[in-house]
């Protein structure tokens, strides 16, 4: 029984950590930089495809790399590539909606998400089919009755590290101040020698690269990747960021753990739980927002008039 | 009519550790102009925000003609007859001047969804009548504004924005109008115009009272019946400007040497 409980707990933490990695990007982009980017989940989901392609290329070229070393290289390369992809998409599409009403950016990026998904599907070899994704780590640590996969520890560790790093970046570094300044008043930020284009690029790079790790963990956890995974993962990550409080890195964790908690609990307690998990997750989202309109850790917006 | 028009007792609000308004008492009688002055950050705008229902006071009570309006939401307070302008003007920028004024008449018009859908003639007649009145109001305050009534409010220069805000406030046929630094950003000529407007409106609408936050001493010296001075959230003086300005505390906190002499 204890072991069972531990399994559920572990599952909760792993899911929570994965959602956090996606939520962080949303929080950074929506909450800190004030850009609306609904295709973040889809951008992130390109990551595993790139990693997969690299692994295959490495294997095909019979490079003298161990399987896990190859995977590690592939993941790092995918992070970088997705970071750049984020920057590119901002430059091509998203930046054009900086001054337009929020709704337009919203619709444009939802459309962008479709374009990304369909591009993978049509351009990637056999893009419609689900593809097996290798496990990042297969080892386990056994403590008494409890089996802890090394992978879980990696996921949790990386996610905590990312939160800490982003928190430090936003609140305690000059770059963080610049990001917030650009979000608040672009022209005055320019007067303060901030180059908005660079700030946008940096932020998009970070958010997308972190998202890419999240996506890689997600598909490695599932064992498969498919071109349309990004949409649901994106929605859940977005919900987590919002109920945690957009702009708050701790909020991203809190929101993710909450959602992952409901996710796991529903499946444990409710008969046919899996078919109702989205119902419960999104009911929770609504409820949190009814009682905490700016999310759990979001600062209530007090308008100064 | 034994009640004062607006009666504020012990009004307070705090933001975290900061007590922005503390125990403020304020009375406004019918047909009276009261100016509120005080250093920057004293809590004047916050007091307006409390009275207009944007913030909910932590303590204290407000009465409008004897009726307790403490804690009412902003739209009910507006409907009860308190209109206001904002320190940095908040117009409906993507609407025409006329629409802005019409929205100001919201509490003085009645038609709702069902009227609009099922009795369009009535609803339309009401709105058109309102539009005529709005036009008249605009014209009375400024023929130039009236001439531009079909252009978007967002394109107006500062001084005109303030004027339009005042017209919008007037449109609701309020009993109290609160103006937050109406002359800021106006040149002296415009300020004179503003004072003339206030006087004219007072003459046209007996019973209407003004509560005005101001920093322009020319206006403060000329316009109000009474002046209340706020400092650090508290009211430190209330009375005739000629007397208030001589109070050392007011000079020290607010007027400074030069202005005290000049005004």
């Amino acid at each position, binding site marked *: 029984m204890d072991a069972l409980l531990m399994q559920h707990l572990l599952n909760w933490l792993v899911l929570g950590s994965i959602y956090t990695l996606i939520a962080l990007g949303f929080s950074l982009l929506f909450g800190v930089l004030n850009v609306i980017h609904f295709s973040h989940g889809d951008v992130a989901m390109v990551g595993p495809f790139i990693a997969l392609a690299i692994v295959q290329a490495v294997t095909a070229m019979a490079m003298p790399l161990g399987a896990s070393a190859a995977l590690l290289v592939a993941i790092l390369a995918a992070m970088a590539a997705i970071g750049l992809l984020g920057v590119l998409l901002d430059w091509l599409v998203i930046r054009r909606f900086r001054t337009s009403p929020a709704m337009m950016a919203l619709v444009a990026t939802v459309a962008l998400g479709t374009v990304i998904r369909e591009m993978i599907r049509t351009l990637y070899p056999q893009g419609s089919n689900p593809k097996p994704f290798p496990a990042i780590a297969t080892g386990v640590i056994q403590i008494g009755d409890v089996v802890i996969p090394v992978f879980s520890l990696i996921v949790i560790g990386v996610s905590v590290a990312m939160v800490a790093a982003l928190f430090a970046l936003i609140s305690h570094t000059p770059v963080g101040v*610049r990001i*917030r300044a650009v979000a608040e008043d672009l022209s*005055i930020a320019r007067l303060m*020698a901030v180059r908005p284009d660079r700030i946008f690029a940096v932020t998009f790079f970070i958010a997308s690269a972190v998202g890419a790790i999240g996506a890689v963990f997600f598909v490695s956890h599932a064992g498969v990747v498919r071109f349309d995974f990004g949409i649901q993962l994106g929605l859940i990550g977005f919900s987590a960021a919002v109920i945690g409080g957009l702009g708050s890195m701790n909020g991203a964790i809190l929101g993710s753990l909450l959602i992952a908690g409901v996710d796991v609990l529903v499946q444990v307690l409710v008969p046919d739980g899996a078919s109702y998990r989205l119902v419960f997750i999104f009911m929770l989202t609504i409820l949190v927002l009814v009682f905490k309109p700016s999310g759990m850790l979001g600062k209530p917006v007090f308008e100064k008039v | 009519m034994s009640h004062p028009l607006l009666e504020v007792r012990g009004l307070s609000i705090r933001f975290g550790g900061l007590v922005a308004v503390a125990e403020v008492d304020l009375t406004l009688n019918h047909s009276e102009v009261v100016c509120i002055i005080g250093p*920057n*950050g004293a809590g004047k705008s916050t007091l307006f925000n409390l009275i207009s229902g944007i913030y909910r006071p932590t303590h204290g009570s407000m009465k409008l003609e004897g009726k307790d309006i403490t804690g009412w939401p902003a739209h009910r307070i507006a409907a009860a007859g308190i209109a206001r302008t904002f320190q940095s003007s908040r117009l409906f920028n993507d609407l025409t001047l006329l629409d802005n004024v019409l929205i100001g008449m919201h509490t003085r018009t009645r038609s709702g969804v069902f009227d609009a859908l099922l009795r369009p003639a009535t609803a339309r007649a009401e709105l058109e009548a309102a539009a005529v009145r709005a036009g008249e109001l605009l014209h009375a305050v400024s023929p130039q504004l009236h001439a531009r009534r079909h252009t978007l409010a967002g394109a107006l220069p500062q001084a*005109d924005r303030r004027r339009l805000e005042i017209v919008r406030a007037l449109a609701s046929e309020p009993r109290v109008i609160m103006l937050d630094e109406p002359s800021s950003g106006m040149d002296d000529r415009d300020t004179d115009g503003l004072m003339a407007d206030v006087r004219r409106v007072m003459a046209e609408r007996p019973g209407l009272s003004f509560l005005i936050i101001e920093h322009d001493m020319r206006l403060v010296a000329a316009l109000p019946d009474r002046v209340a001075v706020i400092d650090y959230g508290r009211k430190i003086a209330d009375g005739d400007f000629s007397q208030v300005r001589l109070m050392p505390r007011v000079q020290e906190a607010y*007027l400074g040497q030069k*202005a005290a002499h000049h005004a």
Partner: protein
Amino acid sequence: MLEMNSVSTSYGSVPMLRDVSLQVGPSEMVCLLGPNGAGKSTTFNAICGLLRSDSGSIRIAGQDVKECGTERLASLGAGFVPEGRRLFPTLTVRENLRLAFDAARNPALDFETQLERMADLFPRIRERLGQKAGTMSGGEQAMVALARALIGDPRLVVMDEPSLGLSPKLIDEYFQIVSRIRDEGKAVLLIEQNAETALSIAERGYLLIRGKIALSGKSSDLLQDDTIRHLYL
């Protein structure tokens, strides 16, 4: 320090400034007056490169603004107080100042020392370093905005109606500080509504009416001028 040569600008197809020329020499204080909507803020925006001028040239410290771009003006030694202050509302006072300090890229300066100097000028700042700029009152914000322009020790300061919304006492203090800045040898362009006060501390003045320079000259002369008197005094 600042030189505008027959600059014209427009909003879309509506022309705004027409052939505006003005100069501010080193350690000189010049004011730009004009009624509402005359184009003063437009001039400000053109100077800091936020609005592209259609023709004419603007130079700061000899550099063409269009060429070097808004982002480099601070390092040329220019500080700005935009209309309505435009602080970064959710950044703390300290962060606002830090940003401006870094913008100046002046290796000779040290942030803490400069901060101390600003706090001496504006004591309120010392108490409020950790407060979010957006929650401060109008007057407090005005102080921070000026401190933000000064913290990089600029050679030129351009201010757009900095006294807007200040209490009489603060206006007094504010202009005292502004004259002190001039006395330190900085060039100042003061855009003002408040003609009397502005002319009383500036050496020269320009009058902008409907996008054109209608008058210019020494402050003492302008104070006597009929147009100005009619408009303002």
